[in-house]
């Protein structure tokens, strides 16, 4: 614990850091117990300042909204402190590619993918995104596989949604705004078709938000983002 580390811990707790600096410091908090202890020390010492916040009664519908969302398994984006790019899978393995390609090209009604002896059409061109839940989760997060040739996109598993809500899939270009790829059918392995013009690019992000029935009315995600991951070439 250097003197600079001590200051950094204080800066994090006081809130002086930019989003990027805070994200880096949070990462160190996760990785380094000594740094975490220093952050906690500051949190405890500065806690009396919390008394200075005035109480303001929130509108009554907030409680109802929260109640309604308690059943959604993994709500809440950690966007600002979550480096999305770090969620990426990294290099995928060739043998896996062929398997996944087979699975992707298997009609949705067939539940067991048949491992092919020879790889089907152009597996090398497939795109893949290992999604990660945006908050702690017990179930494994879905992997999205896209065949640019046909526009077929499939997820290895679905997303739990409360009644009257639906998962909506988005592509988020680097430095750009989310673009809807469509609503996810309630299915163990949801598949959708994406128009050629709407295919996600390598390096862009795929994300799933929870929206009201019929999808986001604004053209942008309005509900919580429950999973996200970066698109890679397989």
């Amino acid at each position, binding site marked *: 614990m250097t003197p600079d580390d001590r200051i950094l811990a204080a800066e994090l707790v*006081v809130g002086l*850091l930019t989003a990027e600096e805070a994200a880096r410091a949070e990462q160190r908090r996760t990785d380094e117990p000594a740094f975490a202890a220093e952050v906690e020390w500051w*949190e405890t010492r500065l806690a009396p300042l919390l008394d*200075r916040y005035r109480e303001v009664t929130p509108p009554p519908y907030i409680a109802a909204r929260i109640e309604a969302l308690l059943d959604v398994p993994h709500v809440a984006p950690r966007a600002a402190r979550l480096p999305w790019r770090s969620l990426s899978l990294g290099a995928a393995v060739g043998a896996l590619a062929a398997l996944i390609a087979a699975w992707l090209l298997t009609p949705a009604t067939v539940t067991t993918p048949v491992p092919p002896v020879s790889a089907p059409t152009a597996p090398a061109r497939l795109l893949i995104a290992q999604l990660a839940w945006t908050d702690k989760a017990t179930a494994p997060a879905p992997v999205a596989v896209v065949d640019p040739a046909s526009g077929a996109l499939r997820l290895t598993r679905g997303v739990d949604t409360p009644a009257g809500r639906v998962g909506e899939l988005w592509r988020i270009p680097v430095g750009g705004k989310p673009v809807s790829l469509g609503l996810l059918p309630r299915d163990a392995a949801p598949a959708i078709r994406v128009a050629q013009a709407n295919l996600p690019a390598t390096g862009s992000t795929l994300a799933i938000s929870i929206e009201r029935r019929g999808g986001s009315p604004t053209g942008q995600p309005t509900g919580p983002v429950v999973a996200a991951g970066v698109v890679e070439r397989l």
Partner: protein
Amino acid sequence: MTGNGTQADGPRAALAAALTLSATGDREAFRRVYELTAAKLFGICLRICGERQAAEDVLQEVYLIVWRRAATYRPERSHPVTWLATIARNRSLDWRRSPRARGAVADPVEAEETVDDAPLADQRIVAGEDGRRLDDCMDRLDERPRHAIRSAFLDGLTYADVALRVGVPLPTMKSIIRRALIRLRECLNDDA
């Protein structure tokens, strides 16, 4: 956290119990946590986000986080209000630092008037021995860094925000505050 034998022990214990029960999926207990703390946490979200709509969204997110993370709360380590308020503050800071918030955050000058608000007696939840120690140590700092640290904490201001508000170059502001943080740490660490 200290606080043994204070009058606040009753509510503190009740809230800690409700929070612990929430971790088992007890919705009634979770509702109690909300009722006891929503006004406090909404006050935090509102002040840092500076905007009602955002503050409502953040508050909602905060309680969903609380619902899922209640099991990680350790009653022996922190006051439940501190634990909850820290989550609310951090989520509000995240929102304030996010691209969504740019241009939407409250005018810092407007917020300045409230910076030195003393805590209301009936809203004094956390303080006690710790509060007096912090007050003493803050009082020993020069006025400018004291003000800067307090408003950075309460309003969610970054170094750049504080520098802009005070009208001091960013590197100067940083070194003033850093020196003050070192002094503050020495003072708070002084187990006299």
